Each structure stands twice: as C-alpha cells, then as structure tokens.
C-alpha cells in the first residue's frame, strides 16, 4: 500500500483506492511480464458478514505505454459482477466452500477482461471467477486450492487472477507519519522540543501492514504482447525494451441514492484513482492537489514537476534530524532542482546516468512504473534495494513484490541519487542509511511481518484467514467461559 488512502477523497472510497502496482519480468517464466494492481487497502482478515470485494460499479484498468507518450497503448480493463444466490439469507456462505462453483457460496463475484488497443476494444475473457475471501477452516477449508482454481489462462495468452491476497508491501506507517519518525534513528529526531521517552534510543521498525489483506488484479503475459512492434525485447539499451505501467480506477459521473432502490450510476466514467510509481501521490504531491492528481492522465504530469524538483520531504529531513543531513540542507536551501528524482520517477533513467542501465522511452514526464524487459530477473541474491543496491532488476526498474520501496525512495529523497546527475555532490552518510527498519539486510526478501511471497503467479501469498491470524489470536481468559 505504497499509495493507500493517499488523497482525501480516495481515502473515503477504498474499493476504488489503488494501493500498489508491481511490474516485473516473471522470475519463473522470464519470457513473460507480471503486472499486479492492488486495491482496497488495510483489510483486517476477520471481516464478516460482508467480506471485501471489488466494486461492481468501478472500472479497473491496467495501462501500458510502450511508446513514451504518457498515454496507454494497451489497457486491460476489469469489470466485476456480484451474484447473490439467496438474498433472503444474511450469510456469505451457508456451508463449506470447496470449489468456486460450490452451492454453499451465497455471494460470488466474477469479472470480464477487455483489452483496448489500437482503437479496438475486445472482450478477451468473461465470467471469470474470483476466489472467496479467506474466512476460516469451516468456510474455506482448503483455501490454497480455491485460490489456485481462480488462476485463469485466456485464449489470447494472458493469465489472470483477481481476488484477495496477503498484503505484500511493508512500511512503518505509524512512525513515518508521526512527523517523520524513523524508528532506527529516532534518538536523533528533533522532537519539536517535546520530551518523548520512547524516542531516546533506536528501535526496529513496526510493520503496519502485518497480517492484513488486500485485493489484487494480476496479469501475466508474454512480452511480445507488450512491445510496440510485437518483438521479444533483447537489447537493454533500446527504448523499445521499455514499457510504462500504471493502474487506474474510475466511477461513473453520477450516483443516485434512494430509499427504495439500489444506487444507480449514470454518465461517463471519471478517473478517481491512479498509481504508477510508489509513494508519489503519498509524499510528493501536496494535500491541495492530491485529488486532482488522481484524476489526471500521466501524459499531463509535467504540470507536477515542481514537486519532484523540490520535494517537501527533502527539505524536512534536515530539520527533523538536525546535523544529520548538512549536504542535503545546502542542496534544498539553494533550491537546486532534483533532476535525479525527475529521471527516476517521471521520465525513466536515460542511458549514461547509471552504467549499463536505462529504463526510458523518451523525455515525456509521466508517472509510469517503467520496466526494461530486456533486463533479466535476478534469481540469486536479489537486493531489496533494487538499483541503488546494485540490482538492476529491481525498483525503479519496474517493481518486484519484495522491493523495499520506502527505504529506496527515502534514500533518494535524502540525496543518495543526486550524485548521479551532479558528480561533484557528496551525499550525506545518513542518506545512505535512512530506512524505516523493516528488513534485516539488503538481501532480506522475506518481508517483515508479511506472509511469505509465492514463487509463481500471482506471487503475493494467500490471504490471512479471519479465524487464524498469527499474533492476533489470543483466546479469552479461561474464567470467561
């Protein structure tokens, strides 16, 4: 959830709230790319009687730019339909759900996939079932089998999945948004003159997304379906090997409520959420423009470049941690434009900046997660720090499920990457150390507190069950029953 509840309006609309998007060369099928778009953040596993589901009234898109215009060349559109077998029961299920067609399952959801490309809109899959939410040993006794059954390969070559997953993103939300407290360094925090006993010594990070679920829309497809010319990308120096990915959710213009009928929607669809790179709308875009940013196409993102050139957080770090970032302080005081951040997050990194690496399709400023498909996955000892950890297969070259994007972007904002565009700049030592403290090392890909990732599609683990959540299943005292 690098982008969960990141804008005022979408924070009130979790069903349409895009939380993360991932794009990577599939490690077990390196001729394919996997794209995962997550929605509905921070789901507690125990969530009956109305379990989490996609919105039937929301249009979910996965967009791919393969020419560098900032506009989608290909869109995969997902529309969901909920079916209630017996509306006279309050139950989600009336018995164990042992298959996706089990008669015991009272409230099911299915979806249609439409591919939009070259001006043509084609339904490539319909009535594709979602798995149920993971409830417990009585309702969903073999959840892994239910989830596997929901992986569907379409005649057109894409493999899709849409349903509940264990949250894979990890972040110390509680500390970071408590005025920039990074627990491993909190003894250095200025604390605004307050005496805070808890902040007198460094401490490990606390993962706020531990043991929560999310809903994922995942697509795995041959690279040849993504390139502009239908070729297999083999040249990492070529712009043709790069794609830009983002997800978007839209609702119809008007919703009419009534005391006698279900809500009705009318009018064209209006985009209410979008996400390319993690944490952009979360920490770069100011409060007054977050909702507007969500409504915009990436092709118009040059209007927001000022927030990349002079990010507020980069100016705050030296204030929050006095004495730790003197070089960063001088940089921000001078108003120096952060061309490194623009390259990483808005245009892709062109050739010549990082030796042997590029993920740019040109100069269009657009928030897209840019993946160079000709760079193979790192199968031995990947770094959760991605490119700044020497692993070119990781963020910002696309994004893998285990990449520590919070630490990567904190270090970039703290100035680590500015030296790439200004060789005479020396990053502060602290800039290379900042972290929210949730990984044991750069090669830790277990994701603190999240479920273990899967080694195959859809790569995010099966969701936590409401009945049996680790560290959250303390029984009542014996005297109470």
């Amino acid at each position, binding site marked *: 959830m690098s982008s969960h509840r990141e804008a005022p309006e979408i924070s009130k609309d979790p069903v349409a709230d895009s939380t993360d998007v991932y794009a990577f060369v599939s490690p077990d099928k390196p001729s394919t790319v996997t794209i995962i778009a997550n929605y509905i953040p921070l789901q507690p596993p125990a969530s009956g009687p109305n379990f989490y589901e996609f919105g039937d009234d929301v249009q979910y898109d996965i967009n791919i730019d393969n020419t560098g215009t900032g506009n989608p060349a290909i869109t995969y559109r997902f529309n969901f339909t909920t079916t209630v077998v017996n509306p006279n029961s309050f139950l989600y299920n009336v018995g164990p759900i042992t298959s996706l067609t089990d008669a015991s399952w009272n409230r099911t959801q299915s979806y249609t996939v439409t591919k939009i490309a070259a001006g043509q809109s084609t339904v490539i899959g319909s009535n594709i079932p979602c798995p149920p939410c993971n409830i417990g040993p009585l309702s969903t006794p073999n959840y892994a089998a239910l989830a596997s059954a929901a992986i569907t390969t379409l005649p057109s070559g894409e493999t899709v999945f849409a349903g509940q997953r264990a949250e894979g993103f990890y972040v110390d939300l509680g500390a970071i948004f408590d005025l920039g407290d990074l627990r491993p360094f909190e003894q250095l925090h200025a604390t605004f003159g307050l005496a805070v006993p808890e902040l007198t010594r460094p401490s490990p990070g606390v993962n706020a997304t531990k043991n929560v679920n999310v809903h994922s829309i995942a697509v795995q497809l041959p690279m040849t379906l993504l390139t502009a010319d239908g070729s297999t990308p083999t040249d990492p120096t070529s712009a043709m090997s790069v794609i830009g990915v983002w997800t978007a959710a839209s609702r119809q213009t008007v919703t009419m409520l009534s005391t006698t009928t279900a809500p009705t929607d*009318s009018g*064209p669809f209006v985009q209410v959420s979008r996400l390319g790179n993690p944490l952009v709308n979360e920490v770069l875009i100011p409060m007054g423009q977050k909702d507007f940013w969500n409504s915009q196409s990436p092709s118009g993102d040059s209007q927001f470049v000022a927030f990349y050139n002079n990010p507020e957080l980069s100016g705050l770090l030296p204030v929050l941690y006095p004495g730790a970032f003197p070089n960063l302080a001088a940089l921000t005081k001078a108003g120096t434009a952060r061309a490194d951040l623009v390259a990483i997050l808005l245009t892709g990194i062109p050739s010549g900046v990082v030796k042997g690496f590029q993920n740019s399709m040109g100069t269009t400023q657009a928030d897209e997660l840019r993946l160079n498909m000709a760079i193979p996955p790192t199968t031995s000892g990947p770094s959760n720090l991605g490119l700044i950890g020497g692993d070119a297969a990781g963020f910002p070259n696309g994004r893998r499920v285990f990449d520590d994007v919070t630490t990567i972007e904190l270090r970039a904002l703290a100035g680590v990457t500015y030296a790439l565009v200004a060789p005479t700049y020396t990053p502060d030592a602290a800039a290379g150390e900042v972290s929210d403290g949730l990984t044991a090392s750069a090669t830790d890909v277990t994701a603190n507190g999240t479920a273990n990732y899967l080694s195959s599609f859809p790569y995010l683990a099966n969701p936590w069950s409401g009945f049996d959540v680790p560290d959250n299943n303390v029984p009542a005292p014996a005297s109470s029953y």
Partner: protein
Amino acid sequence: MKDLSRRSFLGRGSMVAAAAGIGAMAPAAVGTLLSSGEAAAPAISEVGDDLPAAGDVDGAVVAHISNASTGQLSIFNGTREVVINDPTVVSHLLRALQ
C-alpha cells in the same frame, strides 16, 4: 450495469415531456454529444437531432444544471452525457425549486 428501470431523479415521464418541449421550441440551443469513457469524440448536434426518441431511453436519466447563468445543462443516461445550452429549459427547472 445495475437495473436502471426504476425511479430516476426526474422520472422518465417528466423527462419525456421536457424533451418534447425542447423539440417544439426554436433550436436556440446547441447540443454536444459526448460518448462514454475517457476518449470522448464530441460531435455537435442540435437538440433533438441524433438523439433517441423519448420512448427509446432506457434507465435512469439525470439532469445537472452546470451553469444556470448560461443555461448549460448536462443530461446523463447509461454511460452517456449530453450537454445542451437552453436557458429556457433551465429556467423552467429552476422554477420548480421556488
């Protein structure tokens, strides 16, 4: 798409009457037909031209006065939005609020 055959904001009967009224007047208003979704290709048509007959409209119809001073009115049905400029129609609608 949910069942749209139920009660709408203005009611199909009243919207039909309004449409008939618009057609009977001199077409001082110009309509702009927008298709659904993001890639709209606006086409200019006078009110009453290229629009379905009143009986062919299915589902809820919602009218939104987007600019009372110019008489701009948006009409929503399904995934469509039709924008018209008709101060007389807008005036009639506003009178209902008094």
